[in-house]
Every structure is written in structure tokens, then in C-alpha cells.
């Protein structure tokens, strides 16, 4: 099966770089999914959650506060400003990530409406891992 290369970069370094099956991004005009052989496009992302379907079919969620994405047929490059990956090997590290994520959400002051739905989504993503 064809794979899509996904790179997520923050000013403090790379947060994700691997081949994935698909990725869902919070575009400014609405959420959209990308599969391999997607048409080239670039667009802005708003505060929200990036859902990544990894090679082993598990789903990883990454919270972002702003971003820009460049999609071409084989590759997706996401530049974000602040990002927190909801992942961890044990309960306490997941809880720690969740804590960081909540802090990031609170920093995003201008999109109050979105906050509730975004925090609900990261909660459920954390639940899935536990």
C-alpha cells in the first residue's frame, strides 16, 4: 500500500517524521483529510488537532496552535508554531502530555469557541491511549 510521508516541524525541532497512511488536518476553512496522491496544495491551519493514522493503524493526535501545510502527492510538510503530541508509554507521561496540551489551549486566547471542542478531542485521544 502506498504511504504518505509526513513531517511536522516546530521552531524547536521536529515533532513527527514518518510514513503514515493518512492524516487529518484542521484547515482554516475546515478540517480536511489527506491520503497518498492528494493534489498539491498549501493552506493555513488553525488551532486544532492533527490526527495521524500511522503505519500500524494506530491513531496519534497532535495539538497545534497555528500552522501552514504544504501537501504534494507523496509528502505532507506541516510547519506549526506550538505543538503537543498526545502520546506516552505509561499513564503518567500521557497525563503529562495532556497537561501540556491544556496549557497550550489556554494560551490560544482568540478562538474561544473552538477551545471546548478541541479539548474534548484531546481528552478522547488520551482516553484511547490509556
Amino acid at each position: 500500500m502506498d504511504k504518505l510521508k509526513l513531517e511536522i516541524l516546530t521552531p524547536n525541532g521536529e515533532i513527527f517524521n514518518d510514513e503514515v497512511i493518512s492524516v487529518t488536518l484542521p484547515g482554516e476553512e475546515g478540517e480536511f483529510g489527506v491520503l497518498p496522491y492528494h493534489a498539491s496544495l498549501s493552506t493555513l491551519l488553525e488551532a486544532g488537532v492533527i490526527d495521524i493514522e500511522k503505519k500500524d493503524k494506530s491513531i496519534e493526535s497532535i495539538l497545534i496552535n497555528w500552522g501552514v501545510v504544504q501537501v504534494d502527492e507523496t509528502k505532507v510538510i506541516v510547519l506549526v508554531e506550538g505543538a503537543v503530541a498526545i502520546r506516552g508509554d505509561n499513564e503518567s507521561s500521557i497525563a503529562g502530555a495532556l497537561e501540556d496540551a491544556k496549557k497550550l489551549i489556554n494560551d490560544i486566547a482568540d478562538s474561544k469557541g473552538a477551545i471546548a471542542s478541541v479539548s474534548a478531542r484531546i481528552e478522547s485521544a488520551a482516553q484511547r491511549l490509556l
Partner: protein
Amino acid sequence: MANLKDIQRQIRSVTNTQKTTRAMKLVSTAKLRRAEELAKRSRLYAGKMNQVIAEIAGRIQCNKIGGIDNRCFVEIENPKMIDIIFVTADKGLCGGFNIQTIKAVKKLIKEYKSKNVKVRLRGIGKKGTEFFKYNEVEIFDSVVDLSSKPDKDRSDEFIKTSLEDYKDGKIDGLHIIYNGYKNMITQELHVDRILPVDTRGFNCENAEKSLLEIEAQDEEYMLDSLINRYIQYAMYYALIDSVAAEHASRMQAMDTATNNAQDMVKNLNIEFNKARQAAITTELIEIISGVESMK
């Protein structure tokens, strides 16, 4: 011949200084490793960001009649006032690190003054700010504690004034001057013009070849949003790079200081031994001549 006690005291004091400089070198080495790592990771982001901006700006430039009209990309012919932001360390003892930046700032100010352009100086870091205050050069505003601990939020806050003033037309240019990290032993002075963005690198051929679709939103809106982040990021990167360079420079300075101290101890030891021998000789002569006179 110097007093034995005095020399001994001096040896002790130099040895203590050597201990301090050695410790400072070790601290800088550890900090440098972290700072260098951060700068390296950050560079990846910088590369991609430049690529995205160049691609979008290039498309607008080439496809739109009259070219790009975002103020951030237009060369301003007769600038009236420009901003210079300099980044220096908060602490000294790092060789020529701060003074190099200060010299570059002075040179740039002179250059603009000769063209009758007003300069608004904004400082980051205690050393540079103190220097210009002491020399009675007017500083518009300054922050401390930011260059030793780069922080994205505070850096965004600082650059915001310049960015907004530029967009409002209050200033016509923005330079960032900082001493960046090149490798362990050399620093590289950067005098970067951040605004207006240099558009010479944008290539129409590439823009036409690109299959890129811009999502429904307006390209220019996207560019505007990107440029803000780009400028903020340029500022942040300058800070990260500067802190890495600062530690490298301090490490080197402290290494030299430690070596110098070692040489000094060596010389003092020789002097001490000579003095000791001289004292013994004098004593012997005194005894012998005493015995002689008794005969």
C-alpha cells in the same frame, strides 16, 4: 628579590582564579551543547519556512499585474526611519563577543546617518544596552534576560512593535544584528535585513512550474499571515543562534584564561624557587662569615 610570602600568596590567588575559569569553561561547554542542539533543530524549520514563503510570494509576484503589493516585500526607495535590533549577551567574560556586535551596530548607524535616515535602536541584552547608554546613544527600548534565555513568547512580544510600525509605515526597514554560531571556535556576525524581505531570490520559472494550489483563501491573506510568523521566527532564531555563539565564545575565552593562569603559576613557581635559593645562600654566607670572624 621579592618576598617569599608575597610570591606564595600570588601563586595561591592565581590558582584560585584558574579554578574559577576552569569551572566556567565546563559550565559553558554543557550549555553550549544544549544551545547548539536547539539551533540545529531550529534550522530545519527555517529552511522550510523560507521555501514556503518564497513559493507563495513568487507566485503572487509573477502572476499578479503590478507584482506584489504587500509592504513587507516592496523595496522602499527613500527610507526615513529604520529599526536596528541588536542582540548581545547579558554577561561579559566571553572574549570579543559583545564588542563585535556593538561595532557592527555603530557602523550601520553611521552608514544610515550619512544618508540622513533616522535610526531607532532597540536592544536585547544588558551588555550592548549598557554600552550605548554609557556613550549616550539614544535607545528606543531594550530588554534584558531574553538573550540568555530565549523565549518564543517574549521574543514575539518584542518584535511586534517593529512589525506593526513597519506595516503602519512608521518605519521603513528592520535590521537584526547578532553574533551567530558557526563552529566551536568561530562566531559569525550577522547583519540581516529582515524587512523589507529580499525578493531577488524569488524565481518566476519555479513559480510557474509548481503545481501548488492555494486553498480557497486569498493568497495575499495567507502571505500576510505567514510573514508575521516569518519575522517572529527570524527574531527567535537570532536569539537561539546568539546564545549558542555566546557559550562557544565564553568557552574559548575561559580556556585561554585557564591556560594563561597555568603559565603564570609556572613562572611564579620558578621565581619562588629562585627567591628561596637566594635566601638560603644569604643565610649560609652569613653563618660562614660569622664563623670566619670568630677565628
